[in-house]
């Protein structure tokens, strides 16, 4: 959790609609939770409620709740922000997708998917993201290269899922 925080604070790049690095990267993290999928999904589907389970998020303000097209502005603990738009939400498949618009993450063209599936009498949550590094051209500085982008997103997913598990298994 602390490392995720540090990354979020350190990161300075903002998302650029124009151009991006040449190689898209991806991160997939999973966690199993001893709770019914419906209960887990109830937590995840609240697009304006990330602060209730992600340890790095201080608060959230969304334009249209958990409806597709809603834009949330996340305030990150210790500084930093992320503006993200809900692209789609599917109750049947327990899947939601959002797109990062701008903020302090060292990534660009970043899209993320959260989903829940039943597993061993409990639930399996998957958080996966696709993104380009923060620096759009060749020869990126180290804090905005592919590795930095992967590290940041991995940190966010890991610390989030860990705390989601803790919250729901209480």
């Amino acid at each position, binding site marked *: 959790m602390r490392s995720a925080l540090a990354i979020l604070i350190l990161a300075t790049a903002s998302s650029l*609609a*124009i*151009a991006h690095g*040449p*190689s*898209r*990267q*991806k991160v997939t993290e999973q966690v199993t939770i001893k709770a019914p999928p419906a209960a887990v999904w109830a937590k995840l589907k609240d697009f304006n409620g990330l602060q209730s389970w992600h340890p790095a998020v201080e608060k959230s303000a969304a334009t249209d709740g958990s409806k597709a097209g809603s834009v949330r502005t996340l305030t990150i603990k210790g500084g930093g922000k992320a503006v993200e738009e809900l*692209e*789609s939400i599917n109750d049947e498949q327990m899947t939601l*997708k959002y*797109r990062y618009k701008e903020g302090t993450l060292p990534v660009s063209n970043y*899209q993320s998917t959260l989903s829940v599936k039943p597993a061993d009498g409990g639930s399996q949550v998957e958080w*996966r993201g*696709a993104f380009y590094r923060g620096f759009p*051209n*060749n020869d990126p500085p180290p804090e905005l290269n592919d590795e930095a982008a992967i590290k940041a997103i991995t940190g966010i997913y890991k610390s989030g899922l860990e705390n989601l598990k803790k919250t729901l298994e209480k």
Partner: protein
Amino acid sequence: MGRLGPPPSRGRKFLRPLSTLLWRLLPPLLFSFATVAQAAPFAYITNQGSNNVSVIDLAVERVVATVPVGRSPAGIAVHSLTRRAYVTNPDSKDVSVIDMTSNKTMARLPVGGGPVGIAVAPDGGKIYVADWFNSRVVVIDGGKHQILASVRVGKAPAGIAASTDGKRIYVANRDSNNIQVIDTASYQTLATITVGDHPFAIALDDKAGRAYIVNVQSNDVSVVDLKQNKRIATVAVGNTPYCAALTPAGDKLFVTNQHGDSVSIIDTQSNKLIETVPAGGYPEGIAIHGKRAYVVNWMDDNVSVMDTDNHKILTTIATGKNSRGFGQFIGAP
């Protein structure tokens, strides 16, 4: 692929023994002719995360070879006539040339910048490489592997296509929101056509006088009339469309939607969406052979095989990491 078998009986019983005998002898004969005339096609899938190309034998629908290339391979252009597959490596800033008969890399051609989109002239004489970072198309001699020209284009050139007669290339300038038509003899720009937001890939049907441009940001496909060099229709598709491929008859266009995890199918007569069907995670490259569409799923590291008649996924073939297959990736050596 045609299916061999005895012809249906027409009730002429006395002929049956002879026809049965003939049909027993014919398949091996026909088969050997077929192998000589044209080998079974292969799909060459660039794996950006594992720095190699998966070679899929489409007859058996599995990977039969894995060819190491440069760093982060993305674009691909297969040329059956010269038995070469050209791969762009944006992170090593070069093009790998694969000999399709041996599935070995025979050359690495330095290009610089960020080579992504790639196309080969129909006769194999020229290779066109779009440099994502430097607003240019690099033209390479297909035989001597020397750089012949560097042609100025719009911002962030991505997809590139060569006309059937070899006289023109079409370049999608992603950040200029247009398509540039370039004469391949003079390298002059013949036309610049405004399309949707962030055009990435081009599917060309120059026999029908049409080009279909996939616009990543406006979630649609621009239909361009190649005689008037004008956009004549816009068809809304799924979320974040990326690539497109036409059926051999040109009657349907299949479009991959990255964020939609789906494929949209367009009727090219009416320019109307037929339907959008689920595909794998982050579908990117797509190519069609016969009645099969091969959809490259970047997130899932595999290729889905889709029936182009009923749009059902028939099977899935595991590939390398972060598969892209951006370009025309099917050919027969």
